[in-house]
C-alpha cells in the first residue's frame, strides 16, 4: 500500500501543529465557536449528540495492521473503547474531548493517517472497491488511480470551498461493489482497444434528492485523468449553486443543465486545461503503482475442506474469489446478531490487525457496508482464520444477507438524525436469525437511514428504511427496489410510514411476498423488478 513520502508527512504534521494551536486558542477563549467550527470541521471534528465526534479518513478503505492497531489504541485511550466503521469506508469515534483532539491527530500522523477533508465543502476521502487489488474480476487495481486523485485533491486550493461536499469513487471491475454511480464523480477504469482509461460518471448521489450519475465520457486516457477530473470540478465550482444548501450538490447542477450541456461545458474546459500542465507526470502514477504491487503469492491448495459445516457456511457466504486461485478475500462481519452495525472494539481492531499480519500480507480493507476485509488469505489458512474469528464473535456468516444491513448511527448518536436506526437493525437481525429465514432469502440488501441525508443508503437498498420525525415521534418509511451495484436503481416508497414495531413487521411481510413469488434463483430485487410494487403494497396495506 501507499507510504507517505517526506512531503506527505510534513503536510500532515504541519496540519496537526496548526490544529493544536487552533484548539488551544478555542479553549482559551481567543476563538469563538463560530470562528472555530470551520477549523475543527476541516480536521474531521464534529460536535454530535453526546460529545465531539472525530471522523478519521481511511483512503479508499485500505489500511495495514499497524494503522488498525493505532485505531484500536485510540479507541481505548481517548474514546470509550470502540469505533464505528462508516458507509464512507472511514472510522468515527463518538466520545472525543476537544482537549484530546490534537493528541489523537498526532497519534494518527505517526501511522500515516489523518482526519483532513473528512468534513467541509471539499473533496472528501476517495472511495473504492473493497476487494481492490485482490478480486478475480478486476481489470487492474483501482487504488493507484484513487491515490493519484487523493494527492491531487488534498489541500487543492481551488477546491477547498466548493458549493458543497464532493465524493469521488474509483472502481476497475464490471461489478460495482462501491456504489460508484451514487457518487459526485464515479470513475470506472476500463479497457478500450487495448488501452486502459477512465469512464466518467458525474452527478450521482443519495441524500434528499437521490440521483444516478449519467456517463459524461466513456473513455479518458490515463494521462488525462486528473485534467478531466479538474474540468468536471471547475464547471461545478463555477456554476454550482451556493445560494441554497439543498441544491448545491453537483447532481443538481447536472440535472438542471442536463447531462449533455454539462458534458459540453466540461469538454470545453477540458480542452482549455489540456495545455495548462495540470496533469502530473506519468512517472508519478508509475511511482504510486509500485506501492500497490502484488504481494508474493504462493501456490497452494485450491479447494476448501468443507467437513466442518459451520465453516462451510461461512466460506460460502463470506469469501470472495481472488485473482490467485490459491487465495480468497475473507469478509469479517461487523454485524453479529443483535449487534450495532459497523462498531468494533479496540480489542477487536487489534485482533483483526493481528490476523491481517498473520494471514493477509498485512493488508486490510474497510467495506462501505461497514465490514472488514482481509484481501489475501491462503485457502490453506482459511479454517484457522475462521476459527479465530468465530471464537472472537467476528465470524457471522451473513455477507449480503438481510442480517448484513447498513445502518447509520441515527438518533442514538447523530445530531442530524430524526429517528433511531440501530435498534431497527438489531431487532431485524435478531428476528431473522431466530426465524431461520435469512439463508432462505439469500442476497437481500437492507439499508437503514435515520434521516433524509441517507448516510445509511436507504435509496439503494433492495429494502430501504428511512426514519422520519412525525410530530416528535419516530416513524419509518419503507422503500423497495433500490440497488447500488452495476444494476443501479433507486428504491420507491411503498406507502404510508410505520411505527418501529410496524416497520419490522413490514420487512417480514415483504420478504414473505418475495418467498411466495420467487421464481427459480431470483434474488429479492429480481422478483421485485419482475412483479412490481403492487403485490408488496397489497400485503402491507391490504
Amino acid at each position, binding site marked *: 500500500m501507499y507510504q507517505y513520502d517526506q512531503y506527505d508527512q510534513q503536510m500532515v504534521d504541519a496540519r496537526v501543529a496548526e490544529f493544536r494551536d487552533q484548539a488551544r486558542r478555542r479553549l482559551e477563549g481567543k476563538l469563538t*465557536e463560530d470562528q472555530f467550527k470551520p477549523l475543527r470541521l476541516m480536521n474531521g471534528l464534529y460536535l454530535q449528540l*453526546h*460529545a465531539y465526534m472525530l471522523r478519521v479518513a481511511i483512503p479508499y478503505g485500505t489500511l495495514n495492521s499497524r494503522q488498525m492497531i493505532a485505531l484500536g489504541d485510540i479507541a481505548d485511550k481517548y474514546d470509550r473503547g470502540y469505533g464505528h466503521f462508516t458507509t464512507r469506508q472511514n472510522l468515527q469515534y463518538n466520545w472525543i474531548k*476537544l482537549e484530546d483532539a490534537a493528541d489523537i491527530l498526532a497519534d494518527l500522523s505517526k501511522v500515516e493517517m489523518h482526519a483532513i477533508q473528512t468534513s467541509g465543502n471539499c473533496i472528501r476521502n476517495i472511495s473504492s472497491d473493497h476487494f481492490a487489488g485482490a478480486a478475480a474480476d478486476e481489470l487492474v487495481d483501482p487504488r493507484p488511480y484513487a491515490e493519484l486523485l487523493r494527492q491531487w485533491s488534498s489541500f487543492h486550493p481551488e477546491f477547498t470551498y466548493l458549493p458543497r461536499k464532493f465524493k469521488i469513487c474509483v472502481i476497475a471491475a464490471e461489478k460495482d461493489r462501491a456504489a460508484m454511480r451514487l457518487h459526485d464523480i464515479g470513475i470506472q477504469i476500463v479497457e478500450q482497444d487495448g488501452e486502459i482509461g477512465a469512464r466518467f460518471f458525474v452527478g450521482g448521489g443519495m441524500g434528499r434528492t437521490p440521483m444516478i450519475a449519467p456517463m459524461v465520457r466513456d473513455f479518458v486516457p490515463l494521462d488525462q485523468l486528473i485534467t478531466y477530473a479538474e474540468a468536471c470540478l471547475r464547471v461545478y465550482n463555477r456554476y454550482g449553486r451556493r445560494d441554497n444548501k439543498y441544491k448545491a450538490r453537483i447532481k443538481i447542477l447536472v440535472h438542471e443543465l442536463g447531462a449533455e450541456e454539462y458534458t459540453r461545458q466540461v469538454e470545453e474546459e477540458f480542452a482549455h486545461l489540456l495545455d495548462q500542465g495540470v496533469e502530473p507526470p506519468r512517472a508519478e502514477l508509475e511511482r504510486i503503482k509500485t506501492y500497490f504491487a502484488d504481494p508474493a503469492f504462493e501456490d497452494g491448495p485450491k479447494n476448501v475442506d468443507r467437513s466442518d459445516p459451520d465453516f462451510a457456511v461461512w466460506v460460502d457466504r463470506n469469501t470472495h474469489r481472488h485473482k490467485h486461485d490459491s487465495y480468497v478475500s475473507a469478509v469479517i462481519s461487523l454485524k453479529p446478531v443483535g449487534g450495532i452495525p459497523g462498531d468494533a472494539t479496540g480489542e477487536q481492531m487489534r485482533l483483526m490487525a493481528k490476523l491481517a499480519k498473520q494471514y493477509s500480507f498485512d493488508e486490510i480493507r474497510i467495506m462501505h457496508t461497514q465490514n472488514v476485509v482481509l484481501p489475501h488469505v491462503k485457502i490453506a489458512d482459511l479454517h484457522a482464520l475462521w476459527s479465530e474469528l468465530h471464537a472472537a464473535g467476528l465470524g457471522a456468516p451473513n455477507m449480503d444477507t438481510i442480517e448484513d444491513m447498513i445502518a447509520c448511527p441515527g438518533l442514538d448518536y447523530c445530531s442530524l438524525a430524526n429517528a*433511531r436506526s440501530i435498534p431497527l437493525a438489531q431487532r431485524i437481525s435478531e428476528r431473522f436469525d431466530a426465524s431461520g429465514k435469512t439463508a432462505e432469502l439469500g442476497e437481500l440488501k437492507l439499508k437503514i437511514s435515520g434521516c433524509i441525508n441517507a448516510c445509511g443508503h436507504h435509496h439503494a437498498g433492495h429494502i430501504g428504511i428511512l426514519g422520519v420525525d412525525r410530530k416528535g415521534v419516530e416513524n419509518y418509511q419503507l422503500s423497495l427496489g433500490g440497488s447500488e451495484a452495476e444494476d443501479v436503481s433507486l428504491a420507491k416508497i411503498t406507502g404510508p410510514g410505520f411505527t418501529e414495531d410496524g416497520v419490522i413487521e413490514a420487512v417480514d411481510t415483504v420478504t414473505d411476498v418475495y418467498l411466495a413469488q420467487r421464481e427459480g434463483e431470483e434474488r429479492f430485487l429480481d422478483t421485485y423488478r419482475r412483479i412490481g410494487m403492487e403485490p408488496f403494497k397489497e400485503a402491507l396495506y391490504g
Partner: protein
Amino acid sequence: MKILTGNDLKTGAVVWWDGSNWSLYVDRAADVGDQGEEIMAREEALRRVNVPYIVEAESSEDGVRPAHIKDRIRALGPTVRQDLTLKPQDPEAIDWVI
C-alpha cells in the same frame, strides 16, 4: 417549562443549566422562563458551555423530561448502549427516552 442545554467546551459532554452551574443531569435542570437567551449569552462568553439552546420540557414528580426524543437521548445517552448512559444499572431508563 423551558430549560437550557449545551455541551461542555472541553469534553463535549451534554450539560443542563441548574440555575447556577451546568450539570450532567437533566433532573437538575432549572426552569429559565424568559431568561434563557440572557443566560446563554453570558455563559457562552465565559466559555462555560458550547452551543447552548433552549429546550421545552415537562416537570413532574418523576423529574424533568425534555419534550423531544432527541433531547431525551442527549440527556441519557445512546439507547443502544446502556453501559454508556448515565444510568447503566437501570434497565427502565431507556423506557424514559422512548
